[in-house]
């Protein structure tokens, strides 16, 4: 039934879905909150961009799903979808103008409706404009679908780059400003609030042209590199690594204080992610209590170095081995009870462990030793000679060193006998055991290694922040790390870095929209799992397996007759 309806009015169903999304965006306040910022100064605000991008995406889907491949029906589908979405927003406006919705929906303010009506005095002019722009967006998206691939790619990248640069202007403008002679670029590109119209056109042309050239030449360049002799090829690789190293070393000074702070947070998550990647990604043991080891590392350093408790007063470097060692011991201790559990049960048990540790630390009963809810302060910073790792720009190097060390260890471990045992266990425990792998030792080693890395990360965290509180170690951290690994691609080490940047770094950059950060995060997680479950940078084998599994698994109810029982 739905199929026939879609055919009669292509784009209608998607238009309704899109309309619901737009109304929701307006009602939860995102449109209005984002409206304070302009993307292109005086032309379009961020709130409007949000509406335009959402409706364009839906219209694009509508065009793509049109059964006919000729221009007329496809454009019609796009326009229908656009009009339906606009019409639903109009309904919201009319409803909001007649009834006071604010008692329930706090964001349904007159200001929101003014914005949706394009600030027109006459409500009907505004509604006309709204319907017109809906139809226009639908039409343009339809046209975009009809142009050749290369052009479409270039246009989309160009438009998206405008949105991204406009959104991140507060970060980009000061950075360009410090680049000496290039500083004039910032003045040309940005006005006080948003891109300047001239800068926007320039940026769009530059990005679109670069994309077009790169997509046209990409294959040729790739072939040339492939065809190179081994010698020059190695030189090229070496040069790339060297360049990456130089960039990594000067990065905090090029990017300034705020971005360095963001990078240290990303670095912490990379460290944690690499550790958990061993447990979850290599050995296939789903651990939801991973934050416990992070807490153990932090608290060990805090107790050993802080003068506040006054038990010990070691330096950071003296406390570090204890922290890692204690983490490893805790990993084994918590590993033993859960040796026989599998899958979800393991996840639940580890979740329980993580919470128990947090609650114990928080309790008044252990307060004389662990500080209770007030935590422990005055943790000493790490120092080498006279150099103190205090500011984010300095802590960055500490974390970089940690990441390189941990990355190297886990890279070597992955291809070792132990690493292969982990992976065998991940694929099938029973078969692995039959092949002579000692499951107890292999599992405990995975827990211990992961816990050690996590404790290392915790130790650096404690000295970075200077104080530890039980609230920093809740179950959300464990869940976030799992998400980092899965979004990056399970078992893939570059994936951990990509995942941490995407899930931890990007949200940090959008702090001023803190209210909607987790909303976008959640939606992105769901979308990611629906569209690209293997992750952003998957391991080759894992990707193959996932796609095979999804394709061969029969949909359970495919052949079922539709007669309901009872």
């Amino acid at each position: 039934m739905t199929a026939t309806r879609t055919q009669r009015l292509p784009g209608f169903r998607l238009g309704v879905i899109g309309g619901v999304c737009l109304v929701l965006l307006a009602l939860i306040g995102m449109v209005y909150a984002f409206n304070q910022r302009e993307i292109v100064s005086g032309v379009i605000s961020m709130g409007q961009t949000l509406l335009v991008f959402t409706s364009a995406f839906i219209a694009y889907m509508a065009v793509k799903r049109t059964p006919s491949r000729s221009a007329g029906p496809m454009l019609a589908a796009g326009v229908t979808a656009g009009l339906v979405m606009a019409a639903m927003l109009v309904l919201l406006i009319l409803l909001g103008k007649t009834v006071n919705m604010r008692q329930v929906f706090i964001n349904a303010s007159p200001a929101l409706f003014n914005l949706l009506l394009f600030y027109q005095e006459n409500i009907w002019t505004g509604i006309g404009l709204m319907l017109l722009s809906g139809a226009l967006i639908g039409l343009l998206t339809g046209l975009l679908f009809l142009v050749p691939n290369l052009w479409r790619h270039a246009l989309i990248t160009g438009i998206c780059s405008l949105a991204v640069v406009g959104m991140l202007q507060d970060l980009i403008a000061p950075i360009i400003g410090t680049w000496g002679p290039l500083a004039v670029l910032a003045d040309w590109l940005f006005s006080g609030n948003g891109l300047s119209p001239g800068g926007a056109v320039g940026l769009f042309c530059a990005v679109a042209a670069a994309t077009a050239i790169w997509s046209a030449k990409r294959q040729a360049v790739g072939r040339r590199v492939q065809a190179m002799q081994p010698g020059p090829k190695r030189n090229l690789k070496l040069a790339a690594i060297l360049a990456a190293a130089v960039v990594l070393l000067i990065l905090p000074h090029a990017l300034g204080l705020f971005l360095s702070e963001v990078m240290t947070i990303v670095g912490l998550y990379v460290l944690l992610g690499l550790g958990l990647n061993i447990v979850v990604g290599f050995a296939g043991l789903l651990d939801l209590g991973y934050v416990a080891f992070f807490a153990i590392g932090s608290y060990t350093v805090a107790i050993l170095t802080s003068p506040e408790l006054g038990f010990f007063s070691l330096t950071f470097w003296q406390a570090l081995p204890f922290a890692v060692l204690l983490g490893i011991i805790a990993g084994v201790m918590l590993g033993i009870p859960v040796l026989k559990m599998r899958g979800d049960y393991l996840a639940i048990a580890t979740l329980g462990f993580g919470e128990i540790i947090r609650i114990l630390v928080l309790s008044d009963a252990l307060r004389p030793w662990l500080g209770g809810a007030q935590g422990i302060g005055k943790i000493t910073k790490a120092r080498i000679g006279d150099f103190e790792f205090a500011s984010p720009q300095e802590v960055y190097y500490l974390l970089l060193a940690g990441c390189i060390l941990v990355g190297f260890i886990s890279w070597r471990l992955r291809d070792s006998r132990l690493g292969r045992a982990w992976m065998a266990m991940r694929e099938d425990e029973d078969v692995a055991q039959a092949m002579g792998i000692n499951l107890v030792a292999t599992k405990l080693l995975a827990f211990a290694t992961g816990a050690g890395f996590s404790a290392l990360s915790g130790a650096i965290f404690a000295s970075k922040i200077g104080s530890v509180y039980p609230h920093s170690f809740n179950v959300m951290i464990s869940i976030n790390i799992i998400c980092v690994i899965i979004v990056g691609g399970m078992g893939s080490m570059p994936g951990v870095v990509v995942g941490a940047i995407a899930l931890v770094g990007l949200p940090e950059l959008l702090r001023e929209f803190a209210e909607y950060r987790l909303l976008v995060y959640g939606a992105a997680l769901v979308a990611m799992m629906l569209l690209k479950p293997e992750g952003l940078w998957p391991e080759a084998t894992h990707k193959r397996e996932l796609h095979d599994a999804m394709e061969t698994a029969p949909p359970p109810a495919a052949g079922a007759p539709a007669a309901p029982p009872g």
Partner: protein
Amino acid sequence: MLKNLRERMSPTDIVMWSIGGLLLVLIVWGSASTIVKGTYSARHWVDFVIFGLAQGSVYALIAMGYTMVYGVLRMINFAHSEVFMSGPYTAYFFAAYFHRSGLLESHPVISLVLVFIVSMATSTLIAVLLERIAYRPLRGAPRLVPLITAIGASFFLQYVFRGLYGSGFQAYPVVTALEGHFSLGPIRVLKFQALVIVAAGLLMVALYQFTQRTRLGKALRSVSEDKEASALMGIDVDRMISMTFMIGGAAAGAAGVLYAIMFKQVHFFMGFIPGIKAFTAAVLGGIGNIPGAMLGGIFLGLVESVGPSLFLDGLGIVAPYQLKDAIAFTMLVLVLIFRPSGILGERLAVTKA
């Protein structure tokens, strides 16, 4: 005989059993010394038990949703706590309206029933949409994928409701008819606690009868037993899975109103803690098992409210009530170690998990 025992027990088993034994000794010792000390009178204990029963029956209702979804899809529906939150938060606006218009005073039963209906409808709607949009496309994907989806959906729903209704705590209107207490002989029961226990009990009985006695319930159970065979028997599996989410959502919506009546406030983050607890309850009872979830919920509620005073006070621990969650989770871990199939164990724990 001893040799036989040594062969069966691995070193890790010995470690585990000794830890378990140690905990048991601690519990017995703590309880004994609390009772000997006599800090709490019999009246206190009765109050603890009734509060535990009320709390536990709310957990049990939420646990229903977890356990049924796990039974059918073998996935932990992390977003169920948001299904639980959505109902009472939406119904709050109706309750507040009834309060303002005086209907809550004059016709408390009618208005409470309306509030329940709104809450259950909202939660059901959210649960069904969740299944349709986020989970259905992922049938047959590896287990971690739906888990992450559920976590994402949980964040998303939390912040959508925060955006819609605001981020503050909303005080649920007080129902005058539920103030005060009954006296059953020497036992004093607060009226709203009695309502919570009775309403939750009725709902659970109804649900249990539904799954055991009706054709639809039978179809549900058959789908959770074996999806493919059910499909061959002419059961529409997709519809049954939707139905599972519907029932779980409705139970969560009802539990939400009861929770709001007990604690007198709603908030967009209110689902998290009861969600985790209810999930613990589902595992305690044996996940996938409906009577198990009821039993696990009530058991958990009782241990949480009686436990800190009983076990920990006697051991001389400061502020034992702060550790009630630790008791809940310790119990969870112990059950998983020593009896992974839960109190009313189903065998799927070993074979399918």
